[in-house]
């Protein structure tokens, strides 16, 4: 019999403690499949900071470091600069990356650190049970905005891809979702491209994945996928925000015209 579906080698057989229907399982599987397909498991180091992401080291079957809240890009910088031949990625949530870790992500991109960032945006603090996140939508109800986020009281959601696209150092930026099977396939393609960008030594890459958190959104799982597709994507349009991977030299990157 032909095997058509199995656990990627880059995932452990541990049972996850994510909530039922959580999007992390999908994103982590996609990351693991990409690492398997690129054949880089034995030279890859993952960094998982505080939040639901932190448990990644129990689920990825490869070398992993925990990091303090928001500091994963700095930790990844330390690892990558020490071991330039290894593939280093961070796996960060929205509270981690876009609030407490804003300085670290912006400067890692500005330095064009040759690392890959998998940014899981579910518009809420998951592990602490549903507080306002830097990416929560206007009107979104959270445990610290019970009547919904307002611009007056809470400001506006941060669009990370758009923000980082302004930096010369970011080489590849794409936003995808896990709202449907075709979108999951697109997510996998984007993550593969981001890892390839690093393997080719081109510099900073980030894939923002819009994911669901049914528990804290207080929705059923099908409702949560609909919410990604119909509501989240309005504020966070999927797409490629930066792609300088075709450029080979510094001057090409600067002028924005790829070589032959």
């Amino acid at each position: 019999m032909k095997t058509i579906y199995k656990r990627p080698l880059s995932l452990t057989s541990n049972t996850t403690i994510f909530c039922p229907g959580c999007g992390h399982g999908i994103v982590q599987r996609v990351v693991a499949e990409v690492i398997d397909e690129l054949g880089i498991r034995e030279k890859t180091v993952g960094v998982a900071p505080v939040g639901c992401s932190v448990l990644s080291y129990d689920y990825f079957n490869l070398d992993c470091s925990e990091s303090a809240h928001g500091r994963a890009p700095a930790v990844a910088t330390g690892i990558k600069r020490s071991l330039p031949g290894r593939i280093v990625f961070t796996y960060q949530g929205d509270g981690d990356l876009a609030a407490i870790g804003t300085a670290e992500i912006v400067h890692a991109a500005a330095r064009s650190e040759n690392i890959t960032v998998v940014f899981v945006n579910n518009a809420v603090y998951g592990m602490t049970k549903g507080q306002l996140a830097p990416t929560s939508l206007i009107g979104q109800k959270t445990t610290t905005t019970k009547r919904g986020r307002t611009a007056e009281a809470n400001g506006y959601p941060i669009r990370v891809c758009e923000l980082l696209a302004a930096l010369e150092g970011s080489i590849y930026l794409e936003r995808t979702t896990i709202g449907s099977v075709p979108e999951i396939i697109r997510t996998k393609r984007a993550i593969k491209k981001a890892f390839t960008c690093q393997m080719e030594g081109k510099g900073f890459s980030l894939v923002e994945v819009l994911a669901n958190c049914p528990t804290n959104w207080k929705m059923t799982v099908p409702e949560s996928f609909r919410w990604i597709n119909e509501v989240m994507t309005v504020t966070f349009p999927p797409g490629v925000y930066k792609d300088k991977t075709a450029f080979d030299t510094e001057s090409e990157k600067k002028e924005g015209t790829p070589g032959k």
Partner: protein
Amino acid sequence: MRKVLLSGCEASAEGALAAGCRFYAGYPITPQNRFPEYMSERMPEEGGVFIQAESEISAINMVYGAAAAGMRAMTSSASPGISLKQEGISYLAGAELPAVIVNMNRAGPGLGDVTPSQSDYFQSTRGGGHGDYRTIVLAPWSVQEIYEFTYKAFDLADKYRTPVIVHSDGVTAQIMESVDLHLHRKRLPEKKWALTGCRERLPNSVRSLALTPGVLETHNWALAGKYRKISLRETRHSKYMCDDANLLVVSFGTCARICHDAILMARAAGIKAGLFRPVTLWPFPYEELAKLAGKAKKIFVVEMNMGQMIDDVKIAVKNNIRIFFYGRPGGGVPSSEEIFREIKKI
């Protein structure tokens, strides 16, 4: 023998390089700006990594990453910057990663002043960040010593897989003295736990989180055992003219060096004073001090702060002897004449 004229920042950097440190991340702050400047030149010469980070927080986390990857890694800063690094130091201690942190202590609280101080004694010796942990703390009193202690700090950090602090100050950071650069680490210890990619082995992980009930308590008891072992093996002090001393002056770092001259003045005036200098601030040389205190009549603690190490002196001598104190908080550096005057009052 290779003697060169160096500042304390430069000598500390050379000690690190001699120890095989090949990763430095830092951020500008007075009075240790010479440190990142010097490292930005010397690290690439030695084939190492220099990064000027976006913050102290980022710098210590870069060090965390480099340490996790198996490098001998360090950062340097001064007091307000060291406060920012405490989160990272706590994580280093929890994850049992070796790293060296140099603090060129300046006066606080708050932004304070850029003048030399010893007011971070509590912060260095009581943990500093959150949680139950200790860091080894070495207190040099000269440029030669900061070179040697920084070198030694890397060996201690690797031996015990723990962050080590070189606790110096703005005086030693900036003065220039001739240094004998005699050290050179040829072989570095193997680190099987490091994150280098899981080729032909099971994956490694570096972590301090332990959600399963009881796991953290077990881990922390293991840390406690390690700290006990460090206390037994690594406590260091030095003493000068203590054998017949009636008055035992207890001081560390720059302040101890000034006290040394004051004691020479006291001896010339017929006062039997001696100097006891803790070299490791943690572990503190409690037993050695207690032994000497049994012979002396009085103890005189001198610090460039409001009185912090004096708490450890009290723990050591347990109220069996009268303790006097002279301190200069807020960036005051006493002269040896000033301390001699105070000695005469006792």
